[in-house]
C-alpha cells in the first residue's frame, strides 16, 4: 500500500514538473555545514517584479532588466565552506541525472584534480531555453539554473556593469 502511495506521489510530482524544467535537489543539507550560503529561486512573476524595480535603477538597472526579459525562472544555490570535504560528488547526482535526459546538452566540462565546472544548455526550436552551471570547488559549490532565453555573452558582461554586491536578508552570510 505504501509503495503504491509512494509511486503515485512520485508520478504526480513528475507530472507537475514541466518538461525539461530542472529541479535542484539533493543539496538541502549543505546549508547547515556552510559558512555562507545563497539560496535564490525567482519565478516569472518575481522576475517581472524585479524587472520593474530594476528599471528605476538607471542604465545598469535597465541592462540587467533586459537580461531578465526572456527568463522564466532563476535558481541559484551556492555554498561556501570553511573546510574541504563538506560535500560529496554524489550530492550532485540528482541534478546530473536530470541533465542527462533528452533536451539537455553538456556543452562545457572542465575538470581538474579538485575542481569541476560544467555548463549545460537546453534548446527548443533552435533557441536556448535554459542553461545550468555547476561549479564544484574544494570549498565552494554553486549550481545555477536558468530557464528561458538568455544571451551568455550578455550575461558574461554583467560584471563589467559594476553592479554592486547587495546583501540579501535571510541569506546565510554574504556573498562577495
Amino acid at each position, binding site marked *: 500500500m505504501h509503495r503504491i502511495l509512494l509511486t503515485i506521489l512520485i508520478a504526480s510530482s513528475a507530472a507537475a514538473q514541466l518538461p525539461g524544467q530542472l529541479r535542484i535537489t539533493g543539496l538541502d543539507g549543505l546549508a547547515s555545514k556552510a559558512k555562507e550560503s545563497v539560496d535564490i529561486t525567482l519565478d516569472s512573476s*518575481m522576475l517581472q517584479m524585479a524587472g520593474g524595480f530594476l528599471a528605476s535603477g538607471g542604465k545598469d538597472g535597465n541592462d540587467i532588466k533586459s537580461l531578465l526579459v526572456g527568463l522564466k525562472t532563476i535558481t*541559484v544555490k551556492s555554498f561556501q565552506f570553511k573546510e574541504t570535504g563538506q560535500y560529496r560528488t554524489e550530492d550532485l547526482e540528482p541534478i546530473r541525472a536530470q541533465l542527462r535526459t533528452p533536451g539537455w546538452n553538456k556543452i562545457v566540462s572542465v575538470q581538474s584534480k579538485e*575542481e569541476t565546472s560544467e555548463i549545460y544548455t537546453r534548446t527548443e526550436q533552435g533557441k536556448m531555453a535554459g542553461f545550468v552551471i555547476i561549479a564544484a570547488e574544494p570549498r565552494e559549490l554553486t549550481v545555477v539554473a536558468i530557464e528561458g532565453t538568455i544571451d551568455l555573452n550578455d550575461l558574461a558582461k554583467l560584471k563589467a556593469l559594476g553592479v554592486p554586491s547587495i546583501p540579501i*536578508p535571510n541569506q546565510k552570510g554574504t556573498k562577495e
Partner: protein
Amino acid sequence: MNLDEELKAALRREDPSPGFAQRVVARTRSKPTPRWAMPRLIWASAIAAMVVAGFAGISEYRQKKAERAGHEAVLALQIAAEKLNMTRDKIGRWEN
C-alpha cells in the same frame, strides 16, 4: 353661509403670531442629531480609514517584495556571470 364664503374664510391670509420665525429657528437649532446618524458616520469613517490603510499597506508590501526580488535577481545574475566567466577562464588557461 354658502360654500364660496366658507372657503374664503378658511383660506384667509393671517399673519403669524409675533416671534414665530425666531421660535422656528431656535427649535431647528436645538433639534438633536438622530440616534442612528452618529454610529453610521463613525462606521463610514472607520471603513474609509481601513480601506485607505489597506491600500497603503498593500502598496508598501508590493514595493518591498519588488525591491527584494530585484536584489535577488541581481545577486543571482552576478553569481551566474562569475561562474560563467570562471569556466571560460579555465578553458582559456587550458587552451594556452
